[in-house]
């Protein structure tokens, strides 16, 4: 609608003052601001155009507001802005809570012993070989967050050799924090007896001392867990995997909660302490480490990246073509 204005005096070096140059006609095609070769003049024209746009937008907003007030109760409801989450492409694998087949599949999958309360979690946390300070500190902080977890130094041992030993010592899960160039950037979560292995990309890692306005260190109480927005079948598997890291009965006295929030295929991990100030008002303090995960692959069976069968592999060129399609 708003065509860039034509420069009436192209060769003139004088600064334009007050004169409104005529608008370019649609046909024959006029020229645009980007064709002005002089950078200063071009910048000036652009700033002027931008100010014009802003003014018009403000005027339109005011007009709309006036109309709404004039109508009062009869005003049409405010239009909901489009966001990428709103516009998400419907995923056919979204789990319907009433679906019996999916319910049976979940009830008898590899996490069934945990959800039937036959086993209680025992986690082994380790790193890739020769970890640096940040990674080691992250491991220790994670072990305070996850109850019944043990940190071991990885002495260059192969994971395929560690796993049978873990199984014989009754560990239920293995977490490997992978490091590159002195910062942790990957997470391998393997459910032990014969369960799936998930490989995540880890980013935005903040250790405790880097978190502003944090609370005191977490206590030994078993935290509660919040799993947000895991809607598809794959999301359900990953959600169950996270849930099986924590023991069943949270101790509400501790008022601690671990949150895994999935948004647009990124999983945000936060650890908070909450306090109810009244019936509806809660105050929260962030404790504990904070990081973001993105699923790269889910492999059936324990860790075997070369010969294992994959249930889901992230393929960027095939799966990331649409900005509105998410898989978790």
């Amino acid at each position: 609608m708003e065509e860039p204005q034509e420069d009436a005096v192209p060769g003139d070096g004088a600064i334009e003052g007050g004169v409104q140059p005529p608008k370019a006609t649609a046909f024959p095609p006029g020229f645009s601001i980007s064709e002005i070769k002089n950078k200063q003049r071009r910048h000036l024209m652009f700033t002027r155009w931008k100010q014009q746009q802003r003014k018009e937008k403000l005027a339109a907003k005011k007009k709309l507001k006036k109309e709404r007030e004039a109508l009062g109760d009869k005003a049409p409801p405010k239009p909901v802005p489009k966001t990428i989450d709103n516009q998400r492409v419907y995923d056919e694998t979204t789990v319907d809570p009433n679906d019996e087949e999916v319910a049976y599949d979940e009830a008898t999958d590899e996490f069934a012993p945990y959800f039937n309360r036959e086993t209680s979690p025992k986690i082994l946390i380790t790193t890739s070989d020769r970890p640096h300070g940040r990674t080691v500190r992250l491991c220790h902080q994670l072990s305070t967050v996850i109850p019944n977890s043990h940190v071991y130094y990885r002495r260059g041992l192969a994971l395929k050799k560690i796993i049978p030993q873990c199984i014989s010592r009754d560990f239920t899960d293995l977490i490997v924090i992978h490091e590159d160039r002195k910062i942790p950037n990957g997470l391998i979560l393997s459910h032990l007896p014969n369960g799936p292995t998930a490989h995540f990309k880890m980013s935005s890692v903040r250790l405790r001392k880097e978190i502003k306005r944090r609370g005191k260190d977490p206590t030994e109480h078993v935290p509660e867990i919040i799993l947000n927005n895991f809607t598809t079948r794959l999301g359900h598997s990953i959600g169950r995997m996270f849930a099986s890291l924590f023991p069943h009965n949270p101790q509400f006295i501790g008022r601690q909660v671990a949150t895994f929030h999935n948004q647009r295929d990124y999983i945000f991990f936060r650890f908070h302490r909450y306090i109810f100030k009244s019936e509806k008002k809660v105050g929260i303090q962030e404790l504990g480490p904070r990081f973001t995960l993105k699923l790269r692959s889910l492999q059936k069976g324990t860790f075997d990246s070369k010969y294992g069968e994959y249930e889901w592999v992230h393929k960027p060129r095939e799966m990331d073509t649409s900005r509105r399609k998410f898989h978790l």
Partner: protein
Amino acid sequence: MAAASARSNHVWVGTETGILKGVDLQRKLAANFTTTGQPQREAAVNALCWGASDETQILVGCADRTVRRFSTKDGAFQGQRRCPGGEGTFRGLAQADSTFITCVDSGVLRVWRSDDKEAPSDPVRFPFSSGGERFGKGKSKTLKLTHLWFFQLLELKVGPGVCRMRQNPAQPHVVATGGKENALKVWDLQGSEEPMFKAKNVRHDWLDLRVPVWDQDIQFLPGSQKLVTCTGYHQVRVYDPASPQRRPVLETTFGEYPLTAMTLTPGGNSVIVGNTHGQLAEIDFRKGRLLGCLKGLAGSVRELQCHPSKPMLASCGLDRILRIHRIQNPRGLEHKIYLKSRLNCLLLSGRENWRDELELPQERSEEPPQDSEVDELWASLEVAAKRKLPRVDQTLRALGTQERKKKCPGALSPQPCE
């Protein structure tokens, strides 16, 4: 009604939860069939094959070592039979005349009579040379003799770690087996107990180390004696028993992950292989060239099957989705159906006509008794059938199949080529 819809299913898929699913691509419906009406993980489907008399029966091999018979006409399971012997799951199931052949993980290959009588727990090893002299007297005993004469060998030990057993579609008594550290062997079930052809491992590699063997899938090439195998070390090999060399005639590699499934294309010159990362590739086995890849799968491919004449490929895998691809002009995805459980094996109907042929066969069966010679009568009857079709369709849809997986319209419509 379930019977009629079951007959027109194009693809039959076996899942890990023990459900046999029939998918009708024309009407975009999937139906679940179970023996007890409830899914059972212990009865996970491991092998599927067509039963006798073309595509009206399916033999379903389950994880609890039973083979169940399913009739597509009735849409129900008809009987089951326990097949003990050896350990592990079924790796191959095939039908030959009035018997069926099973092979399990530990390498026990058995031939069973398919007349639903309970087989003796240890099938009798019957050396055919001395068969005549053993039962000389007594009519009943000689009858037993003639009954067992079909297959002289009822049990074979193929070697441990079997990954696949396939039957030659041209010669039903010839089967091939292969597995992890178990070389490819071709057996003639009517012949001796030694394999007809036993493959030799390739030469040592450039470090002079033995090349490991892991045959994951085998296919017989029609029109010759050759076989193609795909291995867990991402190799595709062609063997020729007719040639004096027991080593593979051709070897190519694809990708870096184990190849898990393979099928022949209708053109007859290439195979399509799938690996554990969900990559599908068409490889020409005359030259060993990669012709192209197919996109779409996100999980490990469990089974592939091509239609014998149309350029259609059905693939199923651990990502719980059945996909139908078009192989040529243009190459791309046609149908994608979410089937809720991990899919283990599939059977693609090889019939030519995939359109709705529901009412017409029933109408035609009423024709001969009427004994009409007039062409107008034929024409008018066909017209009546066409008029009936929409109403019947509606009743079918109203009755519904047991499982309707679609909530959102349009998701099952043929997807544009990816």
